[in-house]
């Protein structure tokens, strides 16, 4: 155990010390802060009111009501400055000519008669709801949505008035509704909102995918580097292949955990302290768009972590085994394809089964170790599995981890001494599997007799 700890520590310390680790660990939070704050800062720079002309060709008060509504619109949910600088222009006898001359003013910069857009109101438009707008900012969906909302509200009032209804009576009846989904499992409300657990499931499986690709590959590279620097045989003199493999997987895993924790911590801190952060940059707190932190029950989180760790061990051992059969880092990319594909297939299957988390296929995949790390936690988040189902899936996965780690250890002990060429599948099969099976058959009685000691020898 002492030896495995030494390998874990070396792997961890040497990795954490590298500049690459420091950069990638700090760069991501910096990016997150940037992504939260920058849009607001940029938006503030573009805070000059949009100059909008309302060409009023409608009878009655429709035009003036729209113009007033636009003029009253404020930024940042009502606290900021005016969003629009509105001019109301009467259409007169020749609305088309009037419109054309206004449109010519659109886009002129810095001049007193420049405009950002022209809104054309006619009786037809008010009735049909099709309001032409000529502007420089029609490409911005955000701008258009805002404008639409303002105009819609103003015209609704006007239409109600025309129909002889007092808007102040009618408005409360027109208030929009919001569906509030509540997740129910086994007849009880869990208190989690449906979208939150979905989002969490989504995020976690994506994180697992990312961690596997990032750190699984690091395990593989580290094995190959040990081979190419010819230190592997020096280590083989004192370490069992399995000890070395275990130390590597756990060491790199610990590095990954630290990095993920820093990233997740930043995301949480951003949400938690967004008021202070907003103050720091001098912007309104509500304007900061942060990642929503879903409310998760501790049970769900435990299931996630369990499958995350098991999934990592499962695939990282595979990566280590692949690394031991290669001599150069370039070779590994091709050799690791089956492993990488399996991971990708797991992720894709998980996405495609969002719609039917309790179907036959989903249940089956939960029982297969390579797919369980993706399927089971996500299904649990969506439909709340029974403890029995989770336990079976976790046990099968754990058995898979043991089998893969054992097999990887066998491949590793063969591969690690081979230089210059890749071990072929046949060789791996012959050395790793057949030989060990033969040895096992010889050893089985011994192992049963001395079970505790053989177990201790593995670690």
């Amino acid at each position: 155990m002492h030896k495995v700890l030494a390998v874990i520590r070396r792997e961890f310390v040497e990795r954490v010390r590298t500049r690459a680790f420091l950069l990638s660990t700090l760069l991501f939070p910096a990016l997150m802060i940037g992504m939260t704050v920058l849009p607001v800062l940029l938006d503030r720079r573009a805070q000059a009111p949009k100059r909008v002309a309302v060409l009023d060709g409608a009878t009655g008060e429709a035009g003036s009501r729209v113009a007033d509504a636009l003029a009253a619109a404020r930024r940042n949910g009502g606290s900021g400055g005016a969003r629009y600088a509105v001019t109301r222009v009467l259409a007169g006898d020749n609305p088309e000519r009037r419109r054309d001359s206004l449109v010519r003013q659109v886009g002129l910069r810095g001049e007193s008669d420049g405009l950002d857009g022209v809104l054309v109101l006619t009786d037809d438009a008010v009735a049909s709801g099709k309001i032409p707008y000529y502007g420089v900012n029609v490409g911005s969906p955000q701008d258009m949505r805002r404008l639409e909302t303002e105009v819609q509200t103003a015209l609704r009032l006007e239409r109600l008035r025309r129909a002889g209804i007092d808007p102040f009576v009618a408005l409360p009846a027109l208030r929009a509704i919001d569906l509030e989904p509540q997740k129910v499992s086994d007849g009880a409300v869990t208190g989690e909102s449906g979208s939150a657990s979905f989002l969490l499931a989504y995020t976690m499986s994506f994180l697992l995918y990312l961690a596997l690709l990032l750190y699984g590959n690091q395990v593989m590279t580290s094995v190959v580097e040990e081979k190419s620097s010819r230190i592997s045989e020096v280590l083989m003199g004192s370490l069992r292949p399995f000890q070395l493999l275990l130390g590597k997987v756990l060491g790199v895993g610990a590095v990954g955990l630290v990095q993920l924790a820093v990233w997740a911590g930043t995301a949480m801190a951003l949400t938690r302290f967004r008021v202070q952060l907003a103050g720091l940059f001098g912007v309104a707190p509500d304007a900061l768009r942060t990642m929503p932190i879903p409310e998760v029950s501790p049970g769900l989180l435990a299931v996630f972590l369990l499958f995350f760790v098991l999934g990592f061990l499962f695939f990282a051992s595979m990566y280590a085994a692949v690394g031991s059969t290669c001599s150069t880092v370039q070779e590994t990319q091709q050799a690791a394809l089956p492993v990488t594909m399996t991971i990708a297939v797991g992720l894709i299957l998980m996405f495609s089964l969002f719609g039917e988390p309790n179907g036959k296929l989903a249940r089956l995949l939960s029982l297969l170790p390579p797919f369980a790390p993706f399927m089971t936690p996500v299904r649990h988040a969506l439909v709340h599995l029974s403890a029995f189902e989770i336990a079976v899936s976790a046990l099968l996965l754990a058995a898979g981890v043991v089998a893969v780690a054992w097999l990887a250890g066998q491949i590793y002990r063969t591969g690690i001494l081979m230089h210059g060429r890749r071990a072929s599948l046949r060789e791996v099969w012959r050395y790793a599997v057949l030989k060990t099976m033969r040895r096992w058959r010889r050893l089985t009685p011994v192992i049963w007799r001395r079970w505790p000691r053989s177990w201790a020898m593995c670690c």
Partner: protein
Amino acid sequence: MHDIAITLERVTKRYAGHTAVHALDLMIPRGSVFGLLGPNGAGKSTTIRMIMNILVPDEGRIVLFGGEPASRDLSARIGYLPEERGLYRKMQVLEQLVFLGEVKGISRRRSRELAEQWLARLGLSDWAARRVEDLSKGMQQKVQFIGALLHEPELVVLDEPFSGLDPVNSQVMKDVVVEMARQGRTVLFSTHIMEQAERMCDRVAIIARGEKLVDGKLAEVKRGSGDVHVALAFHRNREAAARVLADRALVARTDDYGASAEVTLAPQANGDALLQALVGAGVGISRFEVVEPSLQSIFIAKVGADALTAIASEVNGA
């Protein structure tokens, strides 16, 4: 206390298509300096890897210190320097040594103490905090050597320890090995450089094509060869000497160094006849001495001349 450090009993290892080691018996007493000699491909490294439990023999038994556990569980008592040796290039020298000590099973603190002592002893203290990749090749070799030996093992297994070393480092390593032997530790090393083995070993085994040819104390091996060896040196008329030495009735084998030669007499010939023939041919002789055979000549006699050329080309190439 068991007085046998390593025992091999009919150890066999087969690879696809060929047998690397065949029914090898070896017994290495405690406190001896044991040379495992043989040409390339003789099975030296395979034997050593099996002793280190890196490879598992197909047949036979290997016993260390007379006990049962495999070498890895005894790693605190064994120092191993493989033929293919390397270091973590990005790691600092001292940390690297501490790590190598730790995986052998000694405590971190003890490992650090020992590493610092060794670095001081081999004049590398100033480099302790440097990365391995900043060191010259010679210094890296010293670090590798320390890595194998820092935990003061009672059994030292070195696979081709002197290959690729410059003369200065070669000397340093030799001193270290001799020092370890003097402290009563057992040293097993493989080599194909006979002079080195001759000067350092008290026991040797010569193996070729996976089989043992000779085994025993160095003096016995030399005496046991039975041939008469004569050391010669010439100062005049070497061409005539070459003609005499080519006579197969007198000389079985010649190891010609130009100005001097070591010859093995033909079974029915004797020293007098050779001396007469040389004098008669008008060769100027500055040395004529019946000697113990050198390990080199025994090796060649046992292994064959074809193996010698293979070795010569490798030595020149290296």
